[in-house]
């Protein structure tokens, strides 16, 4: 791994799982978060919206991701 890789965007998704009524998000790398079900659902919706906007930005510019 090059010295710059740690600052690059992650191409691997995190993995979410549920336990004891809570949602845990593990990875990529240093991500380790526990959320309530409501917070996790809201985060998921926000991520999907942002992902759609990011894909539209790429399509408009014709650029590869930064």
């Amino acid at each position, binding site marked *: 791994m090059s010295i710059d890789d740690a600052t690059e965007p992650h191409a691997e998704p995190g993995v979410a799982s549920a*336990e004891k009524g*809570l949602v*845990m998000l*593990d990875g990529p*790398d*240093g*991500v*380790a978060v*526990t959320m309530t079900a409501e917070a996790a659902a809201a985060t998921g919706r926000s991520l999907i919206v942002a992902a759609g906007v990011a894909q539209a930005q790429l399509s408009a510019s014709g650029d590869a991701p930064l």
Partner: protein
Amino acid sequence: MFTERFLRNRRGVSLDAVERARIETAVSEVKTYPARTIMARAGEPLGQSTLLVEGIMSRYLDDRRGLRQLVAIHIPGDFLDLHAYPLEVLDHDVATLTPATVATVPHAELDRIADEMPELTRKLWFATLLDAAIHRAWLFRLGRLDAVGRVAHFLCETNSRLFSAGLSDGRRFALPLTQADIAEICGLTTVHVNRVVRVLREEGLCLFRSSLVEIADPAGLAARAQFNPAYLYIEDPDNILPSTKRPNR
């Protein structure tokens, strides 16, 4: 002896008998405190430093909601607020996690040691630099590792430190911390730590139960943690860092 575990098995800085006796005579008081006792608060002027003889202590910072992040733990043999000697105040709180026995060394005595014994002074300096090396590893742990990796790294590090102090056989050691303590060390929730402990057990790497840690697969746990003990400067022929021992002058 209060200094029995101080810098034990650390490369190039083990105390000789004269140095050990000098620190022993510098101790002004030995006291035992209950678990969860605040020993020093951020900003308070300090006129002494503390050598931990028995028990586990922590350094911590609270966020604005009062939630605690442990930024260091200390085990027997650690001279845990030697930083306060030059700084005169600490920028964090210090507390016991378990019942703890501490030996107090007044800063006036450290002044005299600095005047009289430069090699011992260098060893005290080494102890604070070792704390800094451990802080760097804790930054790496929180910044780069996932939940399982963080807990695995903490357990590998603690095993190595306790082994150096003569309190682990290399695979098995007492760790009277709660899962909430581990959570505050690793930046996780207690539920997350609970799951990680189960994952480590199911993967055959490590068992943490009833304040006892048993590492079933040291190499596997170290790999999961991306743990390399070189930063602990333990006397070990497999340690990859060059010797810290200086030639006699």
